């Protein structure tokens, strides 16, 4: 018989559209079917490590904030362990989910995550990666969800040794991946979809 590679093709992506909040954060839109919106809180009790707040806005290529985006983050706990079925290295903090989802503020588009500073996680070759948070952005006009990462400006040594950051050709774009401390003590991480400050997005 003719040989065939029987792999399936990934389902093609389509935009999340203008009403992604109905499906993913319905309580935010006033549709109260579920007890609450998933991903609203990343803590289910007292957590280990440094508690931090991350705020940001997603901007389009004209500098206009997106108010119809959904932002998700995924990260390990303060010890670098994931609250995942695929975590084989140890038991993650039972009071920390590691996953957050935000529809952004209805008027300003600003998203806020109350989380913990992530611990370091190894790269497949065993080197340690700098502490980071995985980010996924979907919205009307985005045909395929965009992956990026939040690194921390106050981790210069870890960032300088990070296997991914060091292989970025245009090193002058690295600041687009760095969360900076604001005057109020929170970290700032704005996302620019396009333009001179365009965030580095990842094909992972």
């Amino acid at each position, binding site marked *: 018989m003719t040989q065939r590679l029987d792999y399936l093709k990934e389902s093609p992506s389509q935009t999340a559209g203008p009403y992604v909040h109905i499906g993913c954060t319905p309580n935010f839109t006033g549709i109260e079917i579920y007890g609450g919106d998933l991903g609203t809180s990343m803590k289910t009790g007292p957590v280990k490590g440094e508690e931090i707040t991350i705020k940001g806005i997603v901007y389009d290529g004209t500098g206009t904030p997106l108010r119809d985006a959904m932002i998700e983050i995924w990260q390990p706990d303060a010890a670098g362990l*994931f609250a995942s079925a695929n975590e084989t290295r140890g038991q993650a903090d039972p009071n920390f989910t590691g996953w957050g989802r935000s529809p952004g503020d209805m008027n300003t588009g600003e998203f806020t995550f109350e989380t913990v500073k992530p611990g370091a996680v190894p790269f497949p070759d065993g080197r340690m990666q700098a502490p980071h948070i995985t980010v996924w952005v979907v919205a009307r006009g985005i045909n395929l969800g965009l992956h990026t990462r939040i690194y921390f400006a106050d981790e210069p040594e870890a960032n300088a040794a990070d296997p991914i950051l060091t292989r970025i050709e245009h090193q002058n774009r690295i600041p687009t991946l760095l969360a900076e401390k604001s005057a109020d003590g929170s970290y700032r991480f704005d996302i620019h979809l396009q333009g001179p400050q365009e965030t580095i997005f990842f094909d992972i």
Partner: protein
Amino acid sequence: MSPIKPTGGFIPRDRNWQPDALTPPYKTSIKRSPQAALLSFPTTLSEETSPVFGHNILGELDNDLIHNYAKAGESAIGPRIIVHGRVFDENGRGVPNALVEFWQANAGGRYRHKKEAYQAALDPNFGGCGRTITAEDGSYEFRTIQPGPYPWPNGMNDWRPAHIHFSVFGHGFAQRLITQMYFEGDPHIKLCPIVGVLKSQEAVDALTALLDMNRTVPMDSRAYKFDMVLRGRRQTYFENRKEGL
């Protein structure tokens, strides 16, 4: 059980198959599409792990959009349908315990949202969202009403085909996917600029659910079948897996 298990990193996403970011006929993409090259690298633990959603988060009516927003004893208006299928990975394995969320317009094509400007009536008994978690074989199902097509501001007179939005969590954050399901035979499919971002008829067909008479419940609901595929992992010998990876 086979000694070969898919425990490696995720197979790269096929960017020649997935839609491009910049698709001018879909106007909103023009200022929302990154222009620099994406940074490619093999998946790490950050992308190979994913949050866990237990069946205990689900309410009894979460997968019944006909009733989950309806007053007691009432139900949403429109053609009653069952949507069912399986979630697979690219290796053809069913994906169990995948959180599947869905949202849609009502039978008249109207969304329950303050920014919605279409004059079609709201259905007081229809909220428009639901969710479920796949079974051990990756199967899922829910009950809803068939949504209507609706107009949207893009060209002067663009209408979306009837569709249901899907958001899916697999077992790795790299698998995260949002897509839309269309209905077999809808004449709006070939006219739609959002469907038009898909690069081939095969890709359109992958998002077009088929009428499934075998799953129809006589005198109650018709049925549509819609399978979805998430990225797969490279298959490696479990025994050869590097410590800690």
